[in-house]
């Protein structure tokens, strides 16, 4: 029996995503992924000061709250050939890493966990047994029977209060939930622990960037001057004319706080996040069979030790893996016109060269052209255009980006810690290496890379402190700040590995203003619709062949889609290089 299942809104993600799936005999035969919100940020960016662009771009997303800011300042710096001081590089690395750790933990506990954890079942748990379970997997301090009994009582009060709030209408009791009550209780406890933990670790961004979400950045460095002055005597008479420690947030206290936060991050990842992932995964090993996706993986690379111009110094390397073949890594050129291209065959946009052609971001153009049904609507026409997302392709092939791509790339390039962690995971869960190419593999990869990144943070921190001690306080390079020092025309690409995957911003600068701006973001790679060849995007491919027990409770769809950690506000974007907006709307 053929059935069309619509899931809209997909919740516990960033932004507005809709999935329409065809099922036959309880199996998904075709899926269509649609982004249903557009703001036109790239149109808004045109004609503005490139130094301001980061703030606009950053508001593409408040969850990946830092990544577009970083990609944007890197794009301008790349276009202008603008070097930044080593301290700025280290501070940016620390901020990016903090974003990873914060974002991945929040995704796991607050966005993804409820797909695997039955909150209501936790009421049946025995607190003593829960305590034993918790102590068997980790030495995390909050694991006494009393702690879990308190937690259970809190939960019980809440459920019995009759107002379920955010837990209303969850798919509680669905047979796809396999955790024993004790594991559920432990996970619920950690859901709340993670909420208060994330508040603390977000402070790292506040110290360097003034606030989180949306910390501040700066073309040419970082805006946070360091006020630890070994030899600075102060000028003028009286304290009013001096600053010294306490003058900016990056002082002795601030730097000590950064160190403490790094410790807090590492403890939580080691003692809670990694053990929980492995414990929960062990009950869901069947999910190593579903949700593979397209089998092609791509990374742009990030965490430079030696500036963005030296990709060999990146901690996360760049490259392309095709058809699961880890033995051959294809090199990637961000500037080559025939490599990265975006298609709009099934998107609500027009191209001047026709809807079938792909365009490189430098030449990218976008003319909003909504041809979908007039709201309110029941179904989208998935044979025609059905999304505000474009379909990016590498040499015509769909690519998966994100934690799984990065872990595979690190593994394939011989990164030792990655190889050890992957080996440990496969052994612990007793699954074959093919199991990585799946919904569960993707979720596990996210946990593993969090561990890799949090372990690297102390190194950057110590380097920063060493520089300060050696008297190097530079955080900003002033030489190219004034637009009068820029060439009349310049173009560049700024890229990074965002928590959700490879992210690139392409900018064209003319007479000191933005002439064209385009962001090709992780969730566009993953959530984009079919291309002119009819090739599915990764979400669509991942859902194909997956079972769906009850179309009214599409928890299986949520598991796979959430394993990608969608970020749809990021994914939808528009550009218009020639200044001609062809807004033709056919309302049917």
């Amino acid at each position, binding site marked *: 029996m053929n059935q069309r299942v619509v*899931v*809209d*809104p997909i*919740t*516990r993600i960033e932004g*507005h995503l809709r999935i329409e799936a065809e099922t036959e005999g309880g199996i998904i035969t075709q899926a269509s992924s649609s982004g249903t*919100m*557009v*703001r036109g*940020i790239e149109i*808004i960016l045109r004609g503005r000061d490139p130094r301001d662009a980061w703030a*606009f771009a950053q*508001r593409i997303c*408040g*969850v990946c*709250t830092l990544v577009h800011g970083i990609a944007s300042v890197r794009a301008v710096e790349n276009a202008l050939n603008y070097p930044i001081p080593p301290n700025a590089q280290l501070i940016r690395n620390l901020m990016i890493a903090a974003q990873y750790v914060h974002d991945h933990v929040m995704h796991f506990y607050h966005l993804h966990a409820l797909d695997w954890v039955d909150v209501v079942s936790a009421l049946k748990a025995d607190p003593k047994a829960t305590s034993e379970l918790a102590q068997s997997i980790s030495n995390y301090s909050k694991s006494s029977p009393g702690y879990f009994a308190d937690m259970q009582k*809190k939960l019980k009060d809440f459920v019995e*209060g*009759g*107002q379920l*709030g*955010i837990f209303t*209408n969850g*798919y509680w009791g669905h047979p796809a939930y396999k955790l024993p009550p004790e594991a559920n209780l432990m996970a619920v406890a950690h859901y*709340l622990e993670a909420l208060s933990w994330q*508040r603390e670790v*977000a*402070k790292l961004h*506040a*110290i360097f*960037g*003034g606030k*989180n979400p*949306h910390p501040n950045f700066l073309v*040419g*460095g970082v*805006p946070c001057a*360091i*006020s630890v*002055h070994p030899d600075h005597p*102060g*000028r003028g008479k009286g304290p*009013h*004319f001096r600053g010294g420690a306490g*003058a900016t*947030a990056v002082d002795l206290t*601030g730097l000590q706080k950064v160190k403490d936060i790094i410790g807090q991050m590492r403890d939580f990842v080691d003692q809670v996040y990694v053990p929980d992932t492995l414990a929960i995964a062990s009950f869901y090993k069947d999910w190593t069979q579903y949700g593979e996706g397209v089998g092609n993986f791509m990374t742009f690379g990030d965490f430079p030790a030696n500036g963005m111009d030296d990709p060999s110094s990146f901690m996360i390397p760049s490259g392309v893996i095709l058809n699961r073949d880890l033995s051959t890594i294809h090199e990637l050129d961000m500037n080559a016109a025939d490599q990265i291209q975006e298609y709009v065959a099934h998107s609500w946009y027009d191209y001047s060269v026709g809807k079938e052609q792909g365009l490189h971001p430098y030449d990218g153009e976008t003319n909003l052209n*909504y041809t979908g049904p*007039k*709201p*309110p*609507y029941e179904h989208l026409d998935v044979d025609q255009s059905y999304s505000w997302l474009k379909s990016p392709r590498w040499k015509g092939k769909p690519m998966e980006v994100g934690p799984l791509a990065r872990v595979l790339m690190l593994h394939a390039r011989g990164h030792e810690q990655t190889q050890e962690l992957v080996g440990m995971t496969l052994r612990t869960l007793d699954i074959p290496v093919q199991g990585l190419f799946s919904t569960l593999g993707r979720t596990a990869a996210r946990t593993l890379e969090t561990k890799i990144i949090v372990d690297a943070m102390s190194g950057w921190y110590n380097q920063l402190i060493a520089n300060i001690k050696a008297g190097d*306080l530079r*955080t*900003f390079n*002033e030489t190219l700040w004034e637009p009068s020092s820029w060439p009349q025309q310049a173009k560049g690409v700024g890229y990074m590995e965002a928590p959700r995957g490879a992210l690139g911003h392409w900018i064209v600068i003319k007479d000191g203003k933005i002439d064209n701006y385009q962001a090709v973001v992780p969730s566009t790679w993953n959530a984009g619709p079919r291309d002119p060849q009819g090739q599915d995007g990764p979400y669509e491919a991942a859902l194909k062949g997956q079972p769906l027990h009850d179309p*009214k*409770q*599409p928890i299986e769809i949520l598991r796979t889609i959430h394993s990608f950690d969608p970020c749809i506000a990021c994914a939808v974007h528009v550009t218009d290089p020639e200044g001609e907006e062809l807004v033709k*709307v056919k309302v049917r």
Partner: protein
Amino acid sequence: MADETLLEILKRRGISRRGFLKFCAATTSLLALPPSMAVAVADSLGRLKRPAVIWLSFQECTGCTESLTRAHSPSIESLIFDAISLDYHHTLQAASGHAAEEAREHSMKADWGKYLLIVDGSIPLKDGGAYSTIAGISNLQMLQEAAAGAAAIVAIGTCAAFGGLPHAQPNPTGAVAVSDIIKDKPIINVPGCPPVPAVMVGVLAHYLTFGSLPDLDDLGRPRAFYGESIHDRCYRRPFYDQGKFAKTFDDAGARDGWCLFELGCKGPTTHNACATTKWNGGTSWPVQSGHGCIGCSEPDFWDAGGFYKALSTPVDSVTGAAAAAVAVGAAAGVAIGIANRQRKAQARAEHQTVTIEDLEK
């Protein structure tokens, strides 16, 4: 049990009245009310039941929700588990798709006329609202339906309050603020990109405590938090008065915490609580970390002439107009000069020689 008051909930949790008193003292301080109001706060909070809250997300980036999760006192946990019943919120709720929409419809029906509606993100009006839909419904339609049964609306973030980023020139999707659409309900604007968590929580606490709107300024912002400018409360203000300014982002002045006016700080014209409440549990705030205020709680701050241009400088370049004016002025001046000379010459030509004889006539 659903009708339990906050005091009863706390008591059942083994929290003493002393603890409750402390909670009220902290709330009074958070709301910027005089300490003598603590009794009134205790009285209303004691009788408070968890009201239904529906949170709609439109053209947004989820930064406002993320900011709310950074709230320290009270925290998001205590807010959503103790103080309110958050019945619909995309980013946090367990249910998806049909089940999620059902939760919203059910909550609206059950608490019609009583629930608090929170909106983040702007609403696109162009082209029938096709630029943002949820469950196939346009944002406009969903807002109008949900607003009809709301007791009050809180527009969270600059997008919902003033149109924000989508509204920035040239506003490709025709984005507008909540108050541009809804005219018949009380609306509290809580702008900021995102708003300070303590401010969001404070506004909610005020509404929950007193069931009424706080004192608002002419832009619909609570005066308790938006009554004063960043500049007036800035710890770097003494340097402004002394004429000590950072000239670049890492010169000695920047490291000594001098005023960021020259680097484009919009503190003097921005009304928000950052300088007093700070961010992330009092850790820091933009100016303390070395970047000027970008003015994110003011309408149209995206189009206010560049984040690194000093407040006293022009929004747009005037060079073109100036050059044209000089050229036209010169041409006109020369033209008038020539005309004057001609008049002089003509006067001379018409000049009649007058002799003594003529005078003697």
